[in-house]
């Protein structure tokens, strides 16, 4: 249940080259690797179900390109692109 692969880091995201949630296109799905940003931001996301290893998919972008509509844990929620960029994901089928 607790398979934390990544070493602890201040920003919690070590690799600048990691794929980010904001890089996924509508219809694509990813698995969350790590959540960056401030402690309060991270906790807020975690309590909303954006947890490590959770599956998340991008449903669509808002008409003005921002924010993004996501599906996680079977429900829809929306994040701004700038915040989605703080979430490292790996693409899954």
């Amino acid at each position, binding site marked *: 249940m607790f398979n934390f692969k990544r070493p602890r880091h201040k920003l919690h995201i070590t690799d600048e080259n990691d794929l980010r949630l904001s890089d996924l296109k509508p219809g694509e799905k990813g698995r969350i690797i790590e959540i960056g940003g401030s402690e309060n931001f991270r906790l807020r996301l975690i309590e909303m179900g954006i947890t490590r290893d959770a599956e998340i998919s991008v449903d669509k972008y808002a008409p003005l390109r921002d924010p993004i509509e996501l599906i996680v844990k079977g*429900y829809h*929620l929306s994040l701004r692109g700038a915040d989605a960029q703080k979430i490292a994901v790996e693409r899954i089928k």
Partner: protein
Amino acid sequence: MPKKSLWSALNKMNFSIAVAGNPNCGKTTIFNALTGARQHVGNWPGVTVEKKSGHYNYSDNRFNVVDLPGTYSLAAFSAEETVVRQYLENDEADVVVNIIDASNLERNLFFTTQLIELGKPLVIVLNMMDMAREKGLQIDTDTLATLLGAPVVPVVGRTGEGLDLLKEKILRVSKEISSKARLIDISYPRDIEQEIEKLHELVQKNDVTDKHSRWTSIKLLESDKQTRDEVRSHTNGTDILDQAKISIDRIEGIFKDTGRAIISHARYGFIQGALRECVVEDLADTVDYSRQIDRVLTNRWLGLPIFGLFMWLMFKLTYDIGSIPMDWIDAGLVYLMNSISGLMPDGMFASLIVDGVIGGVGAIAVFLPNIFILFFIIAVLEDSGYMARVAFIMDRVMHNIGLHGKAFIPMIMGFGCNVPAIMGTRILESRRDRILTVLINPFMSCSARLPVYVLVAGAFFPENAATVIFSMYVLGILAAIGSGKLFSQTILKGMSKPFVLELPPYQRPTLRSLILHTWERGYLFIQKMGTVILVGSVIIWVLGYFPTEVEIDRDYVSERATVTQGYDTQLVDLESKFKLSVDKDHREYHSEMIDYESSSSFLELQKQFEELRDELSSEQTVALYSLRQQEFGDITEQKWIGRVGKIFEPIVRPLGFTWRESVALITGFVAKEIVVSTYGVLFGVGENVDEGSHGVISGLRSSGMTPLVALSFLVFTLLYTPCLATVAAIKRETGTWAYTLFSIGYSLGLAYLLAFGVAYFGGMFNWLS
């Protein structure tokens, strides 16, 4: 503990029940279904978070129910979370009823895990079971109840299915209180569990808290500030905090994350384990209807136009349909005023009642239909789930001024009336966003300002009136955007919360809850606005009524007599001329066939005479009327209100204003459209001026006002201190005088600055002089 009442001897008891859960879980629907209309809406002490309470009776026991604000956790990040946590920790509720959206179980249970850890007797309600079934979820409620250690009741709040069972369960859990119905513990991974145990032992041994000791231990691992403060204040408290630090370091070392994030992840781990045992997902033939609807409503291309259409409809309905009962209320008020004036002898008291109280409160009462319709529409948008989509669609725009997408709705509504718009800021979750939206809302040019624009622009810019009026609206929007940016970077800096917005499934709202929501908000409006407006209009009345005896330089009585006399002489002249002509004509009349009185020449003469006489009498009426209004203007100048205007004249002189503008602006503080009727009084046209009134237009033009000053006056009218009702709404929604006074001062300052800018730079380049 149950509150003992006189009935307790008969085994009838009072229980207090707290309804808690996530936003959008249908909490309020269940609360409404339980309590019916027996509700009371107020505020939680110290914060502007709505507190709703009500009660119901079940098998001879009374249950007092409090509807806690919807929150996602008990982390106490927001005002709502703090309220919920304090209420639950302070042991005020005998039983906590946790409402869960069954179609969104996993995330809803995150909050439940914290309620379980609080150690309160708990009843878990699986709401929206119909939607869960539609989604293909089969939930084994018995297993779930065992895993969570609390009864689980499936209900459908919208239809009332399962409510009786819920009441029965609440009763049973309430009665078991004495036997301390024990909940299970949320189990954590072994490494965390060890540290919790260490802390738990210390906490229990030293008896540092009156709260559930396991809850306190877990909160210590989460470095929760409140808990740490509480523990620190006890003897041996520092020992416990030292142990907490060691424990946190240990789990942080193992899990490579912060204590709080580890605990939160572990809670989700527990939930996932539990759900594996009791939920079967059958995804075959399920349709996500909300997603289908959103394919259109938040579509890349259609989303914005459809939203625009909805906004337009909202406006149209609010102001067009609202204007029908508005006219009735208006007529009713006139009738009321007339009949009271008829009943009471003329004098101060009659004037106070008719002009002060009915006139002032009536000015607000006419807005009631608008306000109720608007609140109804907002309730539809909220209950259906569309409001979240509004935030989604408009966030990009509002983000520019540091606001949440939802703030767009109150901003647009401000074009109608700032009062309901400011009350509409309740749809925003963060207090900071609410305050920011409240502060910039008055710059959205409300409909009461339009008559002023039409009058002044019509008088001074007849060719370009539409352009001038439109630029006022644009200026208002710019002022709102500019101020928003300024505030979000200065006084309201850094309080912004991350934008994490749930897009709940669409639902068909029930009429019952729509009416309840509309009534709640409308009632607050009546209650609060009513009192403030009453006081305000009485003050303005006093200023306009006293002193009762004023000295005027002109002798209007004799002037009136002169006018009347003049016309009387003219009339006598006319009559004698007519007589002479008739006599002359009669002498020259020779026909025997018809009487002279029926002859065409006599009738012609008579017609001429009558026309001239009517002309004369209407001229006289106009002259007397104008005289009376001039007198009224002169009297007003001598009244306190005129004197106040004179006092402020030096201050507004740099803007090109005279004491008249000063008085108009002061009275406009009650309601901005009053500026027009004040001008009507000052220029002797009477109070019932409409925007096109020629008397006021010519009065304004001949008062020495230049087009430039007129423009500066328009700018000032647009921006200066919102009306009394708006101030009352600001006070109510921000909850402090500090922000209210700031809003008054800021808008006055901005109005002065910009109006001065117009007058000064315009004067420098000799524009529009």
